[in-house]
């Protein structure tokens, strides 16, 4: 197994209805990441593309369609797909391209263009259900996440305000982020609590916005980092893990994401982390809904079951707290173009670890971080541990 480093990252503005096509967004992000790494596209051995449902763009074999935008034409080009988990998973696939020795430099590009889907991307989510058991009920993502949130709140007796605080924290954190869609320096807890009820207990401001955008990272082997003298701005991938649960979401207790816990264990084992709370300095868990950040912190073993809300209330997870969580602003603040959240997860870890986060930089020194994405039908977790 070869050591693999992230040596560059880039992401585009996250907005609904950007004028660019998916190919152009991919190009923009790939160009930024390559420029940051100081690497030309002809030095890249393999391109890995991550993008979530084809139906968003209405293009069959979307990976093929985007190949030339992300620099994959006439190259080793691979598309991996794990629903929302693609945000971190494509970087895991990039990791094994380099770790296995089949590539020295790999470019990971994630793109999502949800606005092509009219009137709302929610209509694509009508086709993610089991066609016999679920689809006739005409479920909707907000409803089932309301069920999961309710279960989580009920089991642990968590007050709604503890969950809403996550939305406040992340939207404020996003203020320094140049790509952010919903940054708000003045948002208060009352704003979230009093926002429109979508499906009890989920309010409008509990939900991350659909978005268009792309993000990219450049991975390089240890040899390349040494030869090109990139050590100064390299963050090393220490461990990767991924895990999928059954399709039958109705068969499991939704209060705890066991699949995230298993993925995290896989990554921690590889990174030689026995006590994640002590050995990890900050986290970027997947937060498409505010309760998911808490849910995932518990899954990652960074909080006791039911105690993540308390950490938020006590300010531990603030950027200047003891254990910063989503210092980027997360999906709640920056936006949720599903696979392109690579830039908020892997990208933010890279920028924070190498001290390039600018206004978002965590004031305390950080050496090890963990990021995670979550996907499919509340069933997939992908985890990556990075360090300096």
């Amino acid at each position, binding site marked *: 197994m070869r050591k693999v480093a992230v040596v560059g990252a880039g992401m585009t503005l996250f907005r609904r209805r950007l004028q660019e096509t998916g190919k152009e967004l991919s190009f923009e992000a790939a160009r930024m990441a390559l420029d940051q790494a100081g690497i030309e596209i002809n030095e890249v051995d393999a391109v890995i593309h991550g993008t979530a449902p*084809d139906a968003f763009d209405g293009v069959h074999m979307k990976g093929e369609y985007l190949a030339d935008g992300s620099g994959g034409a006439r190259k080793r080009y691979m598309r991996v*797909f*794990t629903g929302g988990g693609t945000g971190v998973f494509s970087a895991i696939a990039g990791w094994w391209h380099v770790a296995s020795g089949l590539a020295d430099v790999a470019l990971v590009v994630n793109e999502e263009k949800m606005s092509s889907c009219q009137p709302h991307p929610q209509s694509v989510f009508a086709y993610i259900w089991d066609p016999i058991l679920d689809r006739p009920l005409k479920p909707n993502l907000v409803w089932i996440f309301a069920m999961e949130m309710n279960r989580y709140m009920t089991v642990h007796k968590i007050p709604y305000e503890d969950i809403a605080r996550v939305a406040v924290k992340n939207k404020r954190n996003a203020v320094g982020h140049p790509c952010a869609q919903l940054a708000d320096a003045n948002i208060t807890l009352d704003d979230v609590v009093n926002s429109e009820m979508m499906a009890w207990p989920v309010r409008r401001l509990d939900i991350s916005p659909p978005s268009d955008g792309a993000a990219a990272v450049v991975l390089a082997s240890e040899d390349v980092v040494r030869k090109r003298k990139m050590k100064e701005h390299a963050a090393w991938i220490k461990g990767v893990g991924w895990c999928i649960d059954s399709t039958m979401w109705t068969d499991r207790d939704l209060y705890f994401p066991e699949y995230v816990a298993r993925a995290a264990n896989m990554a921690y084992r590889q990174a030689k982390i026995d006590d994640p709370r002590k050995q990890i300095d900050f986290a970027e868990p997947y937060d498409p809904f505010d309760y998911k950040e808490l849910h995932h912190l518990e899954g990652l073993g960074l909080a006791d079951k039911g105690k993540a809300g308390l950490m938020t209330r006590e300010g531990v997870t603030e950027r200047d707290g003891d254990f910063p969580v989503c210092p980027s602003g997360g999906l709640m603040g920056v936006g949720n173009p599903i696979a392109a959240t690579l830039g908020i997860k892997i990208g933010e870890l890279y920028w924070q670890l190498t001290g390039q986060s600018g206004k978002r930089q965590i004031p305390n020194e950080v050496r090890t971080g963990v990021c995670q994405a979550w996907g499919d039908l509340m069933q997939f977790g992908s985890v990556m541990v990075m360090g300096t």
Partner: protein
Amino acid sequence: MAQRPLDLSPGWRDTELFGWSPMEEVIPSRQPVGAMDGPRFVADCSIQLMPWHASPVRVLDRDVPNVEVVSDTGEALRELPMKGANFPALRVRGRSVEDYMQVSVPKLGRGFGKRGGTVEVDSGEVFPKDCAKPRHEGDTDWRDPLRDFRFFLDHGSGCNAGQTFIPIARFRRAAGLAGVESGEMKVGIVGVGITPFRPTTPEFSWKELTYDGAQRAYADAGIDPREDVDTFITCAEDYYEGFGIFDEFTPDQLGAVMRPMHTVGGDGIAGLANAFMIIQSGIADIAVVESHSKASDILTYEGIVAHGLDPIWNKPLGGHPNLIAGLEMDAYLRASGNTTKDCAAVVAKNRQAALHNPIAGHAARVTPEQAEGSPALWAPLRELDVAPLADGCVVLVVASEKAARNARTTPVWIRGIGWATETPSLETRDWTTSPATRIAASMAYAMAKVRNPGQAFDIAEIDDRFSYKELQHLEALGVARKGQAGKMARRGDLTAGGKFPTNVSGGSLGCGNVLEACGLHRLAEAVLQLRGDAGSHQVDGARNAIVQSWRGLPAASGGVAILGVGK
């Protein structure tokens, strides 16, 4: 072959000197498990040092583990001390031919490659019996490293002063693939499950179909998916499956619940490449790759294919998407000089070959005349030039070297693998030569150290979703010369009894187009052939196979895998 008696020199056991000792209990990690205790090869050579050589001359210009040069008295030499001295009976010995290939002997003039030098390999199993002598006079077959060596030894051309002895390194550089290393670990395919392909499967859902394929593969490999398998991979596309996020529906029927599993938006060889890399990275020992087709559930296949076209420039033009294949066929035939008659011969060959394959869904006694007489719906592409859709599932079990040695079946090693994508843009892509196949093949050849693909393989399983594609791919792979693939098809070279049996399984034309599972099906058929388990369509003595896949319309991406048994 007779085994040479080992004459161990005093320094022979010294691990510090040579990095290894035949007496060591522990076999160095880069050696295949089961390596023999003694040297695997002994090669005789003579060296005449010329007066103008600097003295002393190091025999090996850099340290090569496991290889040493000994004098006729059995004394190990690292340097040749005297100018102008003659060493008539030097002996190079080492543990694997791969090591030997890296030996670089500087400044030895023409002496080293002296005609008549001999190589003896003391294990008949490791190399085919005939490998030390060329099949035909003047044959420059590069099938395995030993032959390379033999060629250079015989022709005395491999060793100009200061040059690397065997130009593998040069070849890699020329191909621009210096980064490709096959890694430290071998990876093999140890289990195959194929469900019989059928035009429609009303009694099974796609989940049940997948379950059927998976349990066949697990039974074949003798593994329990819930305990033995470290990672699972499905190759699928949302639109074919009719789901928003198909990855959701992959784990249950494979036994992958609560395990690492992901979807690859690619064909079977892309899935295999992922399995190969995950195992090479050292985080998994056994991986399962699955792909299936439930094409009979698709109401408007051509509508789905049309959605693969650029939504702004191409899709609005309308028409049946097979017209792209028709245009490509026309471009290819004009550029290569092959004819529609050659394509008709491919159709007849594959449809008839499928009669011997019990899993084939579209076997028929089609003649070339019938193929040529079918309606030219997308001229010059005719109705019978198109592989008909079928339902089916293919599952492969892939294992690391260690796990493969414990498997129930003969492991089929992945000697090389490559994949690539040409631009998706119809306006700017190369329509004639399938560049994705060429790029993927050069990667796989570099990894498998294949120099002359025309001679290196016993059988081929090549994508033939359109008849002309088989010819185009054979030429892109370099196994047929440009414009010659058609002649090979018409001469009967590509049949089971011919010179280069290609798609003896029946290919997609005979078995059916199983969408993303086509690549896995090509792999599975090659694996069965190499194991000797292909039954009624077995090609005798097949030991090396080349497998190629294409993703189908409108994509221009594909993969190449080189499989082999033994060693």
